[in-house]
Structure formats: structure tokens, C-alpha cells
């Protein structure tokens, strides 16, 4: 029997110990009318060899196309050691470190992770992870409303340059508690927040302004001016950032005169495979003064009975298993294993390696942009500095072009028709350090062919 160690003798003797004639008797408190007669809709079991064959065949069908997709998930090289270590059973098959003495490995990793992510973002405290970048925006919005002592507002300003799925997740998650998200348009030349439009909100009571850097279009926002403006209005600033970019971009704690108040983002670029969208992890950091408003697990360093350093979950009075209905969030299980992978990834890359990933990705995207813009009928939608993504506009509808290239094994970009119809035939394109010059050329040639 798969995954069951019981022999017939075991079962017989165990039943005798319990004092029942058979296993069925153990279910005699369940009303007979409710009992299941069978699970006919479930296929018969497969051996490991059979399921292996099935999964391999299905995986092959999906193939390994050459992808230039971004939009919130990014293909980066993941060092072999990251998942060799992460999938060790001691990490993989452990649970939340409630018994600190038997979980020092996981707890120390969380502490090391908190140390790395606070340094990367410049803010003082971090939690042990959230579900993903989208849910992190939602949790940050709820936290801003909770932590803001001077504003009673349930409204936040979110730019149209925030990943549209993040906005959707924030609304689905926080809308039930009355939070509202007013959208600030972007400026058509730069693809950045329209500061004139933003200025029309001056003097109104908002809990926070969300700023994504680099923004959804890959453009770099004027974070200093935006942060100072928001603070002058008495709003918090929630920074939504790409962690790779922080190796070379100014950390949110240094935005403007006072720095962002809460920083969140999608942790996937830090050693987590694309894997069709998950599991990823969201990260969150903030100032020490807001630590008690932060959702999720937090690990602290302390000492044991003999004065030896050790680690434990702390500030648990914020959490659902203690506070129940009054907790900062209902979050319980988060994304521990992915946080582990990210910690190992950041360790292997170090400050120089991560900066190199960021710089090379930027260069590759710039090279790609040059090659593609040279193709007749292709132009950049926006000007100004970028990170590793950009929006291209075509003379013809994007969907057909993407489908044509996909047939050649190239996933050429993300169609923006649905979320940004005003941009016309626009697509979001990304290149990272994983792309070679030949890859870029292959894409450019294929696009030239498709548009001919």
C-alpha cells in the first residue's frame, strides 16, 4: 500500500489494543447516511514509474521556449546549490518553527533573511515572508491604514503604473474591510506617474501612496519627488520594488528626505523558479516604529538558559493564533521554503553578484531594445531610464504577432491590450542575464519576419 507501513499483523494487533473488531468500527460516530460509498471519479493509483512517465510526457508538451516575459516574474539563473540545499528534507519537511529548540535551523535562516532583506531595502525590520508580491501589496495597504495614527482614511493612491494584478489582489483582499484604491494616471511620454494628476489629490486624506520602482512598464519613477510629495500630504509611502534592482537602485529607505515607510515586493527573482506563477514569496520591511503593525511571522535573536545565542518567533501577540479576531492578519503558513531559497541565493550572489545580475539584465534589455526598435514598425512606447523591461508598440495587433513567434518557440512579450488599451498595439518585453546575444538576435530576426 503506497506510503503505509502497516502489515496485516500490525492492523490486527492494533485493533485488538483499541478493542474494536475492524477499522470500520472506528467510524461509528459518523451518521451512516453520510458515509461515502466510493470515489469512482478518482482514477486508480499509479506506480512511481507510471506517474513519472505521465508527468515527463506532459512537461515535454509544454516545452522550453525562449521567453522574453516579465510583468512581475523574472527568469534568472539559479545557482545549483540553492535548490540542492533548499530541498534537503530537514528544510523541506519541517513545519513552522513553533518548537524553537528543535527548529534552530529554520529560525536562524529567517533571521539571516530578515538581515539581508532589511539591508537590501534599507528599512529596519522585516517579517518572515508573505504569499507573493500581489498579496504583499494588499497586506501593506491594510498595515498602512492600521499604523497611520494621524489619518483615519481607508483610501490609498495607487498608480496606473503598479502591476495591474497587484491592484486587483489588493482590492479583492482589502476591499471587504472598506479600503479604496484611487488610481493615479501615468504620463504618456515617460510611462511614469503623472505628477500633475497626482497634485490634484493634494490636501485630501489618504493613508498612503503606493510607488512601484521599477514600475510595471520597466520605467524608473522619480521616487524622491513622489515620496516627498506624499509625506508633505501626510501620507505614508508604500514602496513596491524588485529585489534584484535594489543591488543598484537607491533603497526605499533613502527615497526623498525621509524614505518610504513600508517596503514590499515579489521575492521570486531571488532564486525562485518561475514555475507557472508559484510558489513565490512576498517580502515586507518597515521602520521599527511600525513593527507591531506588521503582519506575519517575525524571528528575534535572544539567549537560552545558559546564555547561548538562539532564535525564536517573537511579537506573536500580533498574530491570529493569539489575537484571533483582533490579529493584524489571518496569515499563518507563509512561504518559508522560498524564503530559504532566497537567503541561499543572496548568500551565493553577494553584493557584487547581485549587482552584476542587475547590470547585465539592464544591458541585455537595452541591447534587445536597440535590436527590436531597428525593426520597421516597432518603437518604444516611453522614453527615460529603465530597469530590465520596456513597452514596445507595433503597427499591427500584438496578439497575432505573439502567436506567430510562439509557434517558432519564442515567447516575445506580454500583450498589454487588456490592461492598457490606450497604448494601442503594445507589449511588455524583458531580457535578463539568462539571454545571450544570439538569443536577442534570434528574437529580432523572428520579429522582423513576422512583421514583414
Amino acid at each position, binding site marked *: 500500500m503506497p506510503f503505509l507501513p502497516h502489515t496485516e499483523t500490525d492492523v490486527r494487533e492494533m485493533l485488538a489494543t*483499541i478493542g474494536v473488531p475492524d477499522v470500520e468500527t472506528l*467510524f461509528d460516530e459518523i451518521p451512516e447516511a453520510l458515509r461515502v460509498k466510493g470515489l469512482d471519479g478518482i482514477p486508480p493509483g499509479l506506480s512511481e514509474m507510471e506517474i513519472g512517465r505521465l508527468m515527463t510526457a*506532459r512537461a515535454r508538451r*509544454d*516545452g522550453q521556449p525562449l521567453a522574453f516575459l516579465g510583468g512581475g516574474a523574472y527568469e534568472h539563473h539559479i545557482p545549483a546549490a540553492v535548490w540542492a540545499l533548499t530541498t534537503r528534507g530537514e528544510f523541506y519537511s519541517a513545519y513552522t518553527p513553533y518548537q524553537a529548540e528543535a527548529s534552530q535551523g529554520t529560525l536562524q535562516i529567517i533571521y*539571516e533573511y530578515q538581515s539581508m532583506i532589511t539591508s537590501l531595502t534599507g528599512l529596519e525590520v522585516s517579517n518572515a515572508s508573505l504569499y507573493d508580491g500581489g*498579496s504583499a501589496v494588499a497586506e501593506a495597504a491594510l498595515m498602512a491604514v492600521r499604523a497611520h495614527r494621524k489619518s483615519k482614511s481607508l483610501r490609498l493612491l495607487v498608480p496606473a503604473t503598479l502591476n495591474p494584478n497587484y491592484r486587483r489582489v489588493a482590492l479583492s483582499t482589502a476591499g471587504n474591510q472598506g479600503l479604496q484604491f484611487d488610481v493615479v494616471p501615468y504620463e504618456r511620454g515617460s510611462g511614469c506617474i503623472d505628477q500633475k494628476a497626482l497634485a490634484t489629490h493634494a490636501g485630501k486624506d489618504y493613508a498612503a501612496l503606493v510607488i512601484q520602482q521599477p514600475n510595471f512598464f520597466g520605467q524608473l519613477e522619480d521616487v524622491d519627488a513622489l515620496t516627498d510629495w506624499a509625506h508633505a500630504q501626510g501620507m505614508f509611502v508604500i514602496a513596491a520594488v524588485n529585489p534584484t534592482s535594489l543591488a543598484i537602485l537607491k533603497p526605499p529607505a533613502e527615497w526623498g528626505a525621509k524614505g518610504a515607510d513600508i517596503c514590499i515586493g515579489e521575492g521570486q527573482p531571488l532564486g525562485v523558479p518561475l514555475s507557472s506563477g508559484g510558489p513565490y514569496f512576498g517580502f515586507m520591511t518597515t521602520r521599527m516604529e511600525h513593527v507591531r503593525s506588521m503582519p506575519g511571522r517575525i524571528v528575534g535573536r535572544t539567549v537560552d538558559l545558559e546564555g547561548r545565542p538562539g532564535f525564536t518567533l517573537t511579537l506573536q501577540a500580533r498574530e491570529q493564533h493569539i489575537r484571533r479576531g483582533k490579529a493584524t492578519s489571518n496569515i499563518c503558513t*507563509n512561504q518559508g521554503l522560498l524564503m530559504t531559497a532566497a537567503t541561499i541565493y543572496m548568500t551565493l550572489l553577494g*553584493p557584487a553578484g547581485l549587482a552584476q545580475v542587475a547590470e547585465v539584465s539592464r544591458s541585455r534589455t537595452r541591447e534587445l531594445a536597440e535590436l527590436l526598435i531597428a525593426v520597421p514598425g516597432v518603437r518604444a512606447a516611453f522614453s527615460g531610464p529603465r530597469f530590465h523591461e520596456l513597452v514596445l508598440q507595433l503597427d499591427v495587433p500584438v496578439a497575432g504577432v505573439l502567436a506567430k513567434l510562439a509557434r517558432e518557440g519564442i515567447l516575445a512579450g506580454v500583450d498589454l491590450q487588456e490592461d492598457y488599451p490606450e497604448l494601442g498595439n503594445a507589449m511588455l518585453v524583458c531580457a535578463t542575464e539568462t539571454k545571450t546575444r544570439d538569443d536577442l538576435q534570434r528574437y529580432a530576426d523572428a520579429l522582423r519576419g513576422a512583421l514583414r
Partner: protein
Amino acid sequence: MTAPKAVEPLIFEYSRPGRGAAAQHPPALAKTGGDDLPAALRRRTPPRLPEVSELDTVRHFTRLSQLNFAIDTHFYPLGSCTMKYNPKACNQYAMLPEFIGRHPLAPATHGQGFLECMFELQEMLKEVTGMRAVSLNPMAGAHGEFAGVAMIRAYHAARGDHARNEIIVPEAAHGTNPATATMCGCVVREIPVDDQGDVDLEALAKVVGPNTAGIMLTNPSTLGVFERKIREVAKLVHDAGGLLYYDGANLNAILGKVRPGDMGFDVIHMNLHKTFSTPHGGGGPGAGAVGVSARLEPFLPVPVVGREGDGYRWLSERDRPQSIGRLSAFMGNAGVLLRAYVYMRMLGRDGMARVGEYATLNANYLMARLRAAGFDLAYPDRRASHEFIVTMKKQAKELNVTAMDVAKRLLDHGFHAPTTYFPLLVPECLLIEPTETESRETLDAFVEAMVSILAEAHADAAKLKGAPYTMPVRRLDDVRAAKQLDLAWKPVNSPA
């Protein structure tokens, strides 16, 4: 005397300027054109990430892993968490290069294999729970709870019934239940259970009414017993116009034996990381798929996998205009879902039914042996479900030995502790869930350890209260951790 050293230094202590794992870094490119990154946007000082070699990294994290208890190394009878064996095949086949390399925004043409797995997973989860439709989107149990309660709210709102904002929760419920209700903008009404662990029907009858949005129940309950009056509960709540929410934390107990849909539940979440054996990962990732009855189907979170002819695609907001929306940036914890899929296919229909049977057999066996050994049960007259509660109330009073002391001493015997101090209404409780994948020998060894701890409680309570002794650290100073917050490493001479 110098203070004792840490078992394993922080990774930062291995760091030396200029050292690095160079093989991991991408090759530098010749600069093409000028640097167009404005100085105002540039980082001025590098982040404090460690500068270590690959070997340093591997040794450090391998050593850290060895400080953990895990299912792969230890019996882990953590009640309500279903710490069963996580088959290696599930990990291997979910991590095939095509699956882990697939971008979430890749077109369905380059994801039919993956989507077929997801579609079949939805179908299998429907069958095993008796629900009409399933969404795989939520990323943890609490996230699934959120989706469920949000759907209940959306359902009432769509009918113009805006008064229904109360969620009823038994006092023994998981903390996530009331926290979820609050997150959904609902008011929580707690109701008691009777002395046999069943919901107090009279109390329930008093709180249901025109404001009732629904009730959240775990069955078997967190008390480790099956809620026998479930049909009466369902009738009371439904007659009052409310809906029934099933917290799937304990689904393992009844897998293949009873289905939440048949019990009258309108919406459920399943913890795939419990019942369907995906890894707990040291605190996630989980997966909290939700299932619903027909009337809630339009409200399911998107995306959902649909079949059209021979092909599969994600159904989005456009296909499901009444959906409560999107709960993850993409489509949930896809890789976890693949693991659950592999597990379910390997078990098949017969294996699935055996899960509930053997989980229940192991729990009742362990309960019978511990009772015979002199431990007090919280519900001695009831069958155990897949878990049961031992209460140390008597020992706490007579010997000053608490559930926590027992939990810590078990670590010295090589067993992870059961869940302690939950559910809150049983004093000094140990919630014990052995799962079906443990052998009789393991259960017997656990009983021996418990017996020896009980003897020690009488003979040398002080020794017991100092446990554990064999772990990497002794008991930790939690008060200091909360008062002198040290949440991130800083170099010794660093300004703040």
C-alpha cells in the same frame, strides 16, 4: 567566564570583503554606450549581503538544516498539522525543468501539460470533497478561508441581503477562523461546545438569525472528535439563511469516508499541504484550494482552469464576472499544486480511502495506549478522529508539570512535540496527530517516551522543567526576545 558560543555562526561572520562564489555570477558585459542610470536613482552603498565562497555557503546551510526536526528525520505528531511523509516523487516530478521554467504569463499553447494536471486536480478534489466546483488559487489554508468567507459575503450581497455580516465560530476553532472573518469585514460570534465536544445546538439556535452570514466549522473538530450533530447544525444555519463553511484542516481524518459536500457544507478549503502531502517547508508554501456548492460557483476566485474541446485554458474575470477576484498575482502556488496532483494520482481511489482509515487507526491506537499508560484524555468517551487530546491538567496541579514541559522533554527523546495549548478551551492540552504514514513501532516508541516522562514527572519534576537538554539550545528567553528586539544582524561598528 565568556558567554557560550552559537552552535553555528551567522553567515555574516564568514564574510570577507572580496570573497565570493564567482561561478554563480553572470559574466560581465562590455559596456555598450553610456550609463543612462541617473545618479539620483543609484544606490550609493552596497547592501550588506555576505561575501562567502560556495563551499562556505553549502556547509553553513547544511549545518543549519541539521539543527531542525523534520518529518524526514523525526516523528512529528503535531496536532492539526498533518505532518505525514512527503513522497520524494512528488517533488521530483513537480520540478521537471519544463514545469519549473514555465513563465506564468506564457500562453496556454505552451502549458497544456501543466493545465491538464491542474484541471484533473480540480476534478479529483471535487470528487473527494463532494463539492460542485473548485478553485486552486489560494496559497495557504488561511488564504482559502479568506476566499471562502469572501464568497459567502459576495453571495449574500448579490442577493441584496446586506445585513448578513456575522460569522459564527465555535470556541475551539483555529485562530485563523475569527481572524479571517475580521479580514472579510465580518463580526465574529463565538459559540460554546458541550461536554462531549459537539456544538451546543441551543447556543447556536440563539445566535442564528437575519444577520447570520454563515458558520465556520472544522469536522472532525479541533477537539479531535467528529461533530455528530452536523446535520442539525446545517439545518439550523441554512434555515436561518446562512451558509456553512468547512475548514479543511482535518480533512485527512475523513478522506474517502465522508465528504463535506454530503454533510451540507456550501464552501470548503482544503489544506493540500496537510491532506495531500505537499511539504510544509518550514512554514510554507501551502495551498488552500477552495470548493463550493452550485450556488457559490460564480463567486470562485479566478483564475480557474476550464476545458474547451481537447484544450485547457485559464478562466479569468471575463468568464466569471461575479468572481470575488484574484488572490495572487498569477495563479496560486502552482508548484505545490503539481505535487498534490502527483500524490493523488499515486494514491488513486483506493489509496485515498485508506488515508482516512489508517490515520484514524493510528490515532485510536496511540490514544488507547496512552490512556492505558495513565494519561488523561480530554474526551475519554469519544472515538479519536485522526487526532486526540491528552490533558496534563492533573499533573499541572499536583506536580507543577505542564504540557509545555512534556513537549520540551519529548524533544530529548527524539520526538517533535505535539501541538500544545491549542485548542484553548482544554487546559494543559497536547493535541496529538500521528498520521497514517507512521509505523506501529514508531507509535510504540512514542508511548514509551511518554511513559518515561510521566515517571520523571513524579520522580524529578525539576529535571523535567529544565528540558530540553540535548537540543542545540536550551529553553529560550522569549521575554527578552520581545523586549530587546534583535531582528536583524548589524556589523559591530555600524551606526544603527
